[in-house]
């Protein structure tokens, strides 16, 4: 197994862990964290492809990772603020109980 | 001769490395570099606790420690023996794993920052390309350790202290980084060694330190204020104010773990002071051109001790801030000043050297400083305080 392959497999595993967390956890904060984890695995892919790619001097992978980290930080801030607002409204962060829109 | 004295540690290390086989040399080199730092700075911590207690005693018109050894010099040893032999009490409801890991993480994170500090000429553990970024990245781990300590103790005092500490550290990390950006802009590098090299050289007898420019002195002042807040020292010691929440996040710790917290806090203070020296005070370079014969590491530690003396002086002089004062100082004064200072450094870089540059750049930072200070005083009444029950 080559190196790039192992990095990609690790990244796929991280993505699946994040996806599993986002799909199965009840706590809204942990769901958000699962999404962060998926973003992280995408970043890992960018860095791995940049390192093994034909033109590492172009820095495109690094740039993409930097911008993606910034977006993830903004997303975390806004997401947690929304969770706080929702908590204030419904007094819970349990996603199974936030079902007032259910028909 | 002076050069040999200056490089004595580097030469000793190379001499010692000559005795080990070539295959083991990288690991031995790393150990020989790391161990002195692991011993030297805790030693400095011991000396500083004595200095601090003596200095505070002077400021408060009392003796300070004077029972153990001459002038109480053995007080740190007595303290160490005491904290090592004390019973290690863990609260019954505490989260034992996290409770144990918190002081370890704090001390480890505090040590990691020293990897990029140039202590003397050719005396830096790692000359990292992104050294300053590494320093701040490692510094941000401390916040997590503080939270772990406060949360795992299951005590309302420690949780309150941890929340206060994290809020304060996050608020002051922004101005800390922004204040250091001016030095990075001027040096054009994030490497600490390159920043020190940029400040080398003398005009007449005066050095080219960044602190001797309008943006440098403002940056240094802001950096030191933010560093005081980052290391939770008076007057920013709300997270561990003894009279309010006893000791804050580490109240439920005893014995050696408590000592580790103390050590971590002081190591953090030394590290940020060392970074201030690197960024603004020319690192290990001598303050006058005729003093360059004194070894470089002596100058680094002299500057460090001078900054520590400043910390002790401030602790003995200023009263503790209130939480709202703390936050308004960070967001209404230090942050705008740091942003303006960056603009100032940019203008300094592109203006031709001369008196006009000095005047313009001084005006850009001095006028807003006065105005913002006036703004902070607005809507506040300053009068003689009357104590209703103390008569």
């Amino acid at each position: 197994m080559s190196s790039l392959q192992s990095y990609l497999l690790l990244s796929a595993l991280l993505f699946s862990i994040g996806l599993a967390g986002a799909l199965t956890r009840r706590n809204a904060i942990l769901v958000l964290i699962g999404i962060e984890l998926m973003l992280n695995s995408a970043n890992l892919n960018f860095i791995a492809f940049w390192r093994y790619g034909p033109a590492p001097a172009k820095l495109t992978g690094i740039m993409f990772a930097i911008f993606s980290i910034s977006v993830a930080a903004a997303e975390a801030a806004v997401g947690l603020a929304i969770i706080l607002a929702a908590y204030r409204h419904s007094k819970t962060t349990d996603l199974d109980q936030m079902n007032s829109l259910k028909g | 001769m002076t050069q040999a004295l200056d490089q004595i540690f580097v030469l000793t290390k190379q001499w010692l490395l000559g005795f080990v086989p070539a295959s083991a040399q990288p690991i031995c080199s790393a150990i020989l570099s790391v161990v002195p730092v692991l011993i030297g700075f805790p030693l400095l911590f011991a000396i500083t606790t004595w200095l601090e207690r003596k200095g505070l005693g002077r400021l408060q018109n009392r003796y300070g420690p004077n029972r153990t050894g001459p002038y109480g010099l053995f007080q740190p040893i007595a303290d160490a023996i005491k904290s090592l032999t004390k019973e290690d009490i863990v609260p019954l409801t505490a989260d034992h794993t996290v409770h144990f890991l918190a002081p370890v993480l704090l001390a480890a994170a505090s040590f990691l920052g020293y990897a990029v500090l140039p202590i003397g000429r050719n005396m830096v553990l790692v000359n990292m390309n992104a050294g300053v970024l590494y320093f701040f990245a490692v510094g941000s781990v401390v916040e997590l350790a503080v939270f772990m300590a406060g949360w795992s103790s299951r005590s309302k005092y420690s949780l309150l202290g941890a929340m206060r500490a994290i809020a304060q550290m996050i608020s002051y990390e922004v101005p800390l980084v922004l204040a250091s950006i001016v030095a990075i802009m001027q040096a054009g590098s994030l490497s600490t060694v390159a920043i020190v090299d940029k400040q080398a050289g003398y005009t007449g007898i005066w050095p080219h330190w960044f602190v001797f420019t309008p943006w440098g002195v403002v940056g240094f002042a802001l950096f030191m204020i933010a560093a005081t807040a980052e290391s939770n020292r008076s007057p920013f010691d709300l997270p561990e104010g003894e009279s309010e929440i006893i000791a804050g996040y580490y109240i439920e710790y005893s014995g050696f773990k408590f000592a580790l917290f103390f050590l971590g806090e002081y190591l953090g203070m030394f590290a940020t002071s060392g970074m201030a020296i690197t960024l603004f005070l020319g690192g290990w370079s001598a303050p006058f051109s005729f003093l360059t014969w004194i070894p470089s590491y002596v100058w680094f530690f002299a500057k460090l001790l001078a900054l520590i003396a400043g910390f002790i002086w401030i602790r003995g002089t200023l009263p503790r801030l209130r939480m709202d004062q703390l936050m308004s100082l960070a967001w209404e004064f230090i942050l705008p000043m740091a942003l303006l200072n960056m603009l100032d450094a940019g203008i300094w870089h592109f203006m031709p050297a001369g008196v006009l540059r000095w005047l313009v750049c001084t005006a850009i930072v001095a006028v807003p400083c006065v105005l913002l200070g006036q703004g902070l005083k607005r809507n506040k009444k300053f009068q003689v305080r009357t104590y209703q029950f103390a008569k």
Partner: protein
Amino acid sequence: MTVTFLILAVITVAGTAAAMGLRNAVHCVLALTVGFAGVAAIYLQLDAQFVGLTQIMVYVGAVAILAVFAIMMTHTPLPAKPPTYSSFWLLGSVVAAAVFAVLAWAICSSAASTQGLPPEPEVSVQQIGDALMHQFVLPLEIMGLLLTAALIGAVVIAMDRREETK
């Protein structure tokens, strides 16, 4: 494929798996920081120093702290512990496992991913700064705008409006 990578990969996967599996939310976040730090170490191993350090600063220093703050602020002491996983946890895990199976199959069967390690690229922070200021200046500006908007938006959303209606 070195020993370092294997160790880091095991740490990362263990940390993230614990973060998604543990019962206590604060423990989850603490385990997650281990995972994030592991990813940062892998970046460092891939010679992406700047990204690795940024990762530590942003994720360990900011996102994890934000998450624990949110957990502290939304903590309700309940007499009975609610279940950790949602009602359709089985379906969720099956979907995640299927996604991993598909991704792993694609990676293993791809020919492009079998090449060796090219020589170490010379990437200094200066080059990254140059690229950010010249080639990528528009994304950088947009990012600044986005972060400002996120800052203001987060404050507005999370602000307690009860004081106004008092």
